[in-house]
């Protein structure tokens, strides 16, 4: 690593901008530092600029402005094949005219390695992804999950320090996807490689990442570890995009230290943690996670009247849609335990929350 590049920073975006047509910026002033060995996910809806960032890092797109550094060295002018970055593509991009073994040997052959060495590395990586017996198969003879493993193995086989993954699990069914998430995570940990992962699936991001960069509109909305992101979203977009979330619109009527007093559009006034709500008089949006709602407990700091509109039985918990302050899309997760009384549709019950769990964010 080059000297002076800070504490173990491996990949660095410095003020990167990208425009395809000279009119619209797809990526606006991106600054991101990724540490060696880190698993960073770029998460965002489609069109948010996350894939463009990945392609710029891989070298398939050039940055319109700014600098991308790898190990402290600018790679703006290095062609993709010299960057030594492993990449797993959305639809795997396994070469259909080559066998699994030939696909894996390809990056080693273009690096002019000896036959024996290639053979040994291919066998080792195949074992790593538990595909030892599939060397002579063609990609078309493999299932989706197996193809996924081979694609992963191909990105790993030439021992790149940085692996990019572009929605690699998008084509798999739910069960397989979850299984692969753990496997990728384990491989990442055991090899100590740096991974930049792109997905639009927030649960996948939460499961796997060390840190998540939430993209929207070409800008990183928040960069944080999964827990922080979930517990302490910095703005309304992140709050809504990560996990399930109840939002209540209102107006800031007073500030007291870290808390804000907010008058809801439906009438009542509540206390919330002032995160990103501006000064008194601004519109704000309150964000409360469904599982943080205390139901039937009139002793909570913020208590509102709620009417049960719909109940969905989900085994471990019951999902309850309620009308609160004139808004009938308020969701409460009620644990399926003896401690909770059964609710009935149409029933009116008090709900509440701890002030720290309710975050006053920017109004959208």
């Amino acid at each position: 690593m080059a000297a002076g590049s800070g504490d173990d920073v491996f990949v660095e975006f410095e003020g990167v901008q990208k425009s395809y047509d000279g009119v619209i910026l797809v990526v606006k002033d991106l600054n991101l530092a990724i540490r060696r060995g880190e698993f960073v996910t770029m998460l965002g809806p489609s069109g948010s600029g996350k894939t463009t960032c990945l392609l710029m890092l891989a070298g398939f797109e050039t940055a319109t402005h700014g600098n991308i550094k790898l190990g402290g060295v600018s790679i703006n002018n290095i062609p993709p094949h010299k960057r030594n970055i492993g990449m797993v593509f959305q639809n795997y991009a396994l070469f259909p005219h080559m066998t699994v073994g030939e696909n894996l040997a390809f990056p080693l052959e273009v690096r002019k390695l000896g036959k024996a060495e290639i053979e040994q590395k291919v066998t080792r990586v195949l074992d790593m992804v538990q595909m030892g017996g599939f060397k002579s198969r063609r990609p078309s003879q493999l299932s989706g999950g197996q193809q996924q493993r081979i694609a992963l193995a191909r990105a790993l086989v030439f021992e790149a320090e940085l692996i990019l993954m572009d929605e690699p699990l998008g084509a798999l069914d739910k069960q397989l996807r979850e299984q692969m998430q753990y496997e990728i995570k384990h491989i990442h940990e055991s090899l100590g490689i740096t991974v930049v992962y792109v997905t639009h699936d927030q649960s996948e991001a939460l499961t796997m990442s060390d840190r998540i960069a939430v993209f929207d509109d070409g800008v990183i909305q928040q960069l944080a570890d999964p827990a922080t992101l979930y517990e302490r979203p910095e703005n309304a977009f992140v709050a809504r995009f990560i996990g399930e979330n109840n939002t209540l619109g209102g107006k800031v009527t007073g500030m007291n230290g870290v808390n804000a007093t907010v008058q809801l559009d439906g009438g009542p006034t509540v206390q919330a943690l002032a995160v990103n709500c501006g000064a008194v008089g601004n519109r704000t949006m309150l964000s409360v996670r469904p599982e943080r709602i205390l139901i039937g407990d009139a002793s909570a700091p913020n208590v509102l009247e709620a009417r049960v509109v719909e109940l969905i039985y989900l085994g471990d918990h019951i999902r309850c849609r309620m009308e609160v302050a004139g808004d009938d899309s308020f969701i409460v997760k009620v644990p399926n335990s003896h401690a909770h009384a059964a609710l009935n549709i149409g029933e009116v019950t008090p709900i509440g929350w701890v002030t720290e769990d309710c975050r006053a964010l920017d109004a959208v």
Partner: protein
Amino acid sequence: MTDATSKGPLTTADGTPLKRKLEQAMFASRLRAFGLVAPLLAFILAVFVVPITVFMVRGFHNPTYETYMPKSTELLLEWDGVSEPTEEMAAAMVADLIQARADKTIGRAATRVNQEYSGTRSMFTRTARKAAKMEAPFMAALVKAHKNWGKPEVWQAIKVAATSWTPAYFLAALDLKYKGDGSVVWQVEERQIHITLFLRTMEISLIVTLSCFALGFPVAWLLANLKVRTANLLMILVLLPFWTSILVRTTAWIAMLQGQGVVNDLMAFSGLNQVILQFMLLFRDYGDLKLASLCSNDVNGVLATGEATLQTLSAQAADAQTTCAAEMVRIYSASGLEAAVAQAGALKAEALRWGYGDERFSMIYNKTGTLVAMTHILLPFMILPLYSVMKTIPPAYLRAAKSLGATNWTAFWRVYFPQTVPGIGAGSMLVFILAIGYYITPALVGGQDGQMISNFIDFHMRKSLNWSLAAALGGVLLIIVMFLYWLYDRVVGIDNMKFG
């Protein structure tokens, strides 16, 4: 499962064996499917298979002689073709000649024999006129009427003509001659033409296929990778040749490539012709062409005005003269005007012989013209299958290869190119098979060395009326195409071919 069903063949609920039941069910659906294709099948049979088969049969069956000269046919077929023709054969011949003349069919029989032995047509028609007055011994009478009756090879040729089912035409299509005694020999060398033509047809088709591939591949790649709007525009340009008549396209190439045509004009105007010529001279010894081409102005001047130009040239300082101008001046002062003009003419004739004269190249009315025009006309047949295959190759493959460390070239060659092989196979097959049967274009721009086998099939169909030979040539062509198809299947695999 009970014991009863686990033993013996499986049966349905009503006890019929499962297999038979399945067949019954399949038969009905097969019958229906056949019923649907039957009209098309009948159509193809009636207008394609039957006429072609009937025509192909002409290639080895020609009963003309047997039909009109039955008596001599019978004896000729018994004759061994080696021994002296007998008096009996001569008598039968005379009887046939008399009858054929009366029926006015003598010309048909004569035409048939003439195909085997030139000059026998007039021998037959003239002898037939005298046949009615002939008396025994008939052989002597025949020889008296026309001396060729005395030649054994004439009788052998007649025996070949009398054999209705004959390999003679197919052998002739391969420059072989089938003789009356059953032997097969090479056609005399100066008449051997068909093998040369088949080889040339293959050569031209192959070059055209390769040129189409070389020119079409990048275009197909562009089409598959450009933005949709630009690609559509380009596609129209590719398809444009399809919408113009083949005659118009070929004639346009004549206007482009002829000596006074657009390409030559541009080259002469820009001086590019001299550059190309110098380049050619680097690689080959063109002999006197070097002199002629480098001073075509002086040569033309001498040829046009003679003495005046020579005197102007002589007046120039020696180092201002070109080599050939100096040569002409030397001859002029040594041997006089006539010798100098002759030298100029010889230089010019030599330049013409190499396809270059008056600052211009010969690019049409020869093989070059055929190749250029055919490549242009057949190009879409290469581009379209290539395009449709390339369109299905996701760009991710190239990116993947590059991310794995492959250079642009390696990524293209090892990853992209192999996946276009089905399109290359289909395009090459289409172009090659179309090229092999091409005839209008070579006829118009082929000159002497750009003719193909189809031009000769056409010649025998329309001019010489030797339809049997035309059928045999067509048959040989068909066999060659089928062989190549088989070879392709063995090497590449037909199922590996993708038309789109």
